[in-house]
């Protein structure tokens, strides 16, 4: 069922925010699951993220693909270029020189890996995007936010849970 409200609770105490997530995880608010929670934090915060449970990251597959693409692609590209050198005098040396080409393939493997990691980051983090209407500038300062989409009947219990954990501010919008 499509959720009707979006709610952002801002906390200045990180421990309380973590406890609030654990309470949601323990189903203390019916109809609200930890899967619905988005944590918005001013710093990289693995300790608090742990409360959200395991959420997969797939950027490494982009990196692997990019590295292999750079390695194999550059080998094909450079060898293909060298193959057209047949008309040039080679002085007895091989046309496609594997050993020296490896230096270039190595560099291109790294370049491919880096570029595809960037693509992986953009895809995985869904960037570019807009921060959202509920986003508060206090988050980039020193507060932590818990963002949820809920139905109207769950709104009051959720707000009550946030208040139990000393929420500083609650922002709310209706999803159209």
């Amino acid at each position: 069922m499509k959720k009707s409200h979006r709610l952002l609770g801002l906390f200045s105490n990180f421990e309380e925010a973590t406890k609030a997530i654990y309470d949601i995880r323990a189903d203390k608010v019916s109809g609200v699951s930890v899967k619905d929670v988005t944590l918005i934090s001013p710093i990289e915060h693995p300790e608090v993220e742990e409360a959200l449970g395991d959420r997969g990251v797939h950027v490494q597959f982009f990196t692997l693909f990019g590295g292999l693409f750079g390695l194999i692609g550059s080998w094909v590209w450079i060898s293909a270029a060298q193959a057209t050198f047949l008309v040039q005098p080679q002085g007895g040396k091989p046309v496609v020189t594997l050993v020296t080409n490896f230096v270039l393939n190595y560099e291109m493997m790294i370049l491919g890996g880096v570029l595809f990691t960037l693509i992986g980051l953009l895809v995985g983090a869904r960037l570019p995007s807009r921060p959202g209407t509920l986003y508060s500038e206090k988050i980039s300062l020193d507060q932590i936010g818990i963002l949820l989409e809920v139905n109207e009947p769950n709104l009051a219990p959720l707000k009550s849970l946030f208040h139990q954990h000393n929420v500083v501010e609650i922002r709310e919008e209706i999803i159209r």
Partner: protein
Amino acid sequence: MKDIAIHSQENDIREDLPWKQINTDILRSLDNPRRGYWYSIIVCLVLLAIGFTAEVIQYRTGMGMSKNHPHMWNLYIATFIFWIGMSHSGTLLSAILHIVHADWRKPIYRFAEAMTTFSLMTALLFPVIHLGRLWNFYWVVPYIPSRGTWPNFRSPLSWDGFAIMTYLTSSALFLYIGMLPDLAIARDNTTGWRKQLYSTLSLGWCGNDRQWRVFRKAYMLMAIFLIPLAVSVHSIVSSDFAMSINPGWHVTTFPPYFVAGALYSGCAAIITLFILLRYYFRWEEYMTLPILEKICKLTFAIAMMWTYLNLVEFASVWYGHDVYGKEVLWGKMTGAYAPAFWSMMFFGSVLPFALAFRTLRRHIPTMMAVSILLNVGMWLERWMIVSPTLSQSFYPWSWDVMWPTLTSWAIVLGSFGWFGLLFLVFVKIFPSVSMYEVKEMVYHRKLATEKAAAHVGGGAPAYGAHTKKEDAV
């Protein structure tokens, strides 16, 4: 408890720094530097103008302006290697320290990475300048069918092109990605054109858990790629020389020697820029003396490594059977280049002992002078790599001691103005201390200290709670 109290005095950063103050202090650099900043901008502009004028003269007159001499390009190539070397410590050290979770890198890595990017951009000027005929530069671009120019993939010069462009691209991306959360902070705290700029560059970063998780992994993966890349780049630059058969260049220790020299000059430059930024933006809270001490210790260790590799190179030539190589080495020590050689040895191997003394490491004017002189030594090292061999190579028609003209020196000076200007503009437009990571550092250290305080009666001190004795080592 006493240990913890001592530790807090000696800490890399104050653990009770309010996060709001961190934002305010760092973002202040975008508005309000000391006057010294503007004086530095003027100095850089003057140097750049001198360099540009000299380049115009050389462009109009031809390379004869730098003497009609078979190795008139030696100053430019020596300076090219110097700038490539300078670029090494920033991104490489940042990546290594990130992987090993050395959190003292956090207040200093941003400007060090910027230094890498701008050093590479400066270095790239010199292959073009040393050609002389700038208008024909496009001839070296290998689009095969139209002009019949065939790239030689067996040549270290073409490896150079690939390696440096890869390093420049990767370093710039590493710098940019690491800056994303800070661009969002800047977006939230500025107005006008700055807000527009940071809004665009921050790509709408809001710091949700999805973004942080992907960011953490992507940043680590990039750091892992950058370490072998940085090592390969300077090894390849060394191959430009080592793969020739010229005496003094055909040395198997050249790749590690170049990498050590690059790290060395980069670390010295980090000390110089650290001190300057600390002064310009009143960042005593972030660029602290304990962090300066750590960089100095690292620089000292690298200086000793560089000295060792130098001695290995001398010994292998001295005890080898290559009479030509030995002649070049002897020529360096006693011939026309001897003053430069012995200055290099003094600045590179003796002067770094100043970094071994705690009192000197904590004396900022001394460290400023030492760091600049270390880089003078490193520049001389590059000069000593390129010039003596050219003066005594296997081509008799090139046997001569060549001293560059004023025009050439002016172009080299101009490169310092160019680098300085790029760097100074960067630190004025972008936050050059990582705000979100300084917050992390403060947060985690505070937690560690609280944990240590809780355990102080029983177990061993926790993370971060080392003693003054350990600090003094």
